[in-house]
């Protein structure tokens, strides 16, 4: 101990800990083995060997869980923590397929083409993300894309419902029903996405970030509302 104390002044920090001595009458026994890191690494790489069904099911389950988060927006950070872009892609493709029109010759009203809807959704999301980052947001680029994409879910559901309503005929009643449905789902989308996005902004600038989101979902909702089927 004396030597240790004398040595402490010239030895580097924590060197004194190596000099701890244990008295002989307490038996100390056991196995000092460091847990090998290779076991973890095997787990990391083993997803390559699993069957494709497992991979797809796992991803689908993650996407489904995020859908639930969007439909019941609470203050959870699951959407932000494990972001993925599968869900937005699925929703975007579904919406674009349902909204697309045929060639311009066949009908009087021109419906948006598949590419148009796709481009609107993705470029709209990119612009909103850039805007929120420029205003001083703390959320990352892909997290924001993920949130905006997932919050299109209520509008997709509204699209399906509108299509069903349109099977019953095109008239003022059906228009009123569709208007109510689309308005409700558009406000739901805006509310859900602001629940996730607004937290990352400084408090006094929330309105500046919410307005483009409102406009974005408004345009998509308007596209859904003015959709009319071909005969």
């Amino acid at each position, binding site marked *: 101990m004396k030597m240790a104390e004398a040595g402490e002044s010239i030895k*580097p920090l924590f060197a004194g800990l190596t000099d701890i001595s244990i008295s002989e009458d307490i038996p100390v026994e056991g196995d000092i083995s460091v847990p090998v890191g290779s076991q973890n690494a095997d787990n990391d790489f083993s997803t390559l060997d699993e069957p494709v069904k497992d991979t797809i099911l796992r991803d689908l389950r993650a996407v489904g869980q995020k859908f639930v988060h969007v439909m019941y927006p609470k203050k959870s950070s699951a959407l932000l923590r494990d972001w993925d872009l599968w869900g937005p892609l699925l929703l975007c493709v579904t919406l674009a397929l349902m909204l697309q029109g045929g060639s*311009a010759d066949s009908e009087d009203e021109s419906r948006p083409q598949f590419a148009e809807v796709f481009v609107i959704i993705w470029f709209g999301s990119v612009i909103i993300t850039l805007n929120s980052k420029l205003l001083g947001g703390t959320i990352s680029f892909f997290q924001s894309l993920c949130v905006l994409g997932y919050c299109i879910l209520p509008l997709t559901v509204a699209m399906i419902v509108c299509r069903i309503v349109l099977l019953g005929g095109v008239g003022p009643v059906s228009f009123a029903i569709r208007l109510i449905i689309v308005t409700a789902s558009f406000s739901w989308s805006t509310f859900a996405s602001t629940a996730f996005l607004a937290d990352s902004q400084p408090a006094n600038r929330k309105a500046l970030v919410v307005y483009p989101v409102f406009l974005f979902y408004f345009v998509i909702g308007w596209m859904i509302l003015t959709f009319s089927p071909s005969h």
Partner: protein
Amino acid sequence: MSTPQGSKNTNAEPWGAFDDNVIQGSGSAVIDMENMDDTSGSSFEDVGEMHQRLREEEEVTAEAAATEEDTGEDGEFLGMKGLKGQLGRQVADEVWQAGKRQASKAFNLYANIDILRPYFDVEPIQVRNRLVESLIPVRMINFPQKVAGELYGPMMLVFTLVAILLHGMKTSGTVIREGTLMGTAIGTCFGYWMGVSSFVYFLAYLCNAQITMLQMLSLLGYGLFGHCMVLFITYNVHFHSLFYLLWLLIGGLSTLRMVAVLISRTVGQTPRLILCGSLTALHMLFLLYLHFAYHKMVEGILDTLEGPNVPPFQRVARDVPAVSNAIMNATMKSIAAIVQS
């Protein structure tokens, strides 16, 4: 406090992580600025050398340890395979980090959105004030008026105008053949904002006006607020007289404001005239165009089919062949009637 040369017991990894003192070869806490340059220790070549050196050192010690122990079980910490595997993974991780650092450096240099950050530094109350001010012409034109250089308000106004235009195009039943509805709307609005800003900035440069491109973009962007309001009202309420009234009133006010700001920043009668005349013409005519190009006027089509005396502004942007066929038929009929009489 200085650590002796080569002692690595303050580092995280057993083989020594990439601390600055390892890279720069000194163990002191005082960094020698003489040796500090950007690429030292962070370029791939340096990192590669470091890996090679450390790996060789570790392999030498591992070999020495392995020859001492005959029972080298697979996967044990000091075994050859375990050590190499673990070291390999750590090295790969560090290589990835170094690569990421390089890529993010390049990205920050060339694709830096932070260049635009100061132009978006606004509060909601400021945006609201500027929106209201864009309809109030200033009185003092003897000294230069202040123009806010921000881009948030103009961009949001352009997008709002796109949305309103889409609504107008849809309700008027416009059919766009070579293109899409959305593309046309975005092209029109952004084209106007950027194009007319650049044109007026060019004229301002010729006329020696004291205005920068950013200020011009901002000024014209806020001038679109009047357009948004007028179009929003008149795409839904179809009275021509109402439109003309609003065109003069609100369009005129927003144009007057822009003109007053430009006059206050220009010297000389002729330059002022040129600059303000062209801006007035472009701004007012754009509103006129937006209203009448996408205006729902079913009666206009009926008039075209029935009689030759069609008021010129009541044409709808429909398929050209259909309209021209109708006009041809009407003309042929009237010519036949004249010939026969």
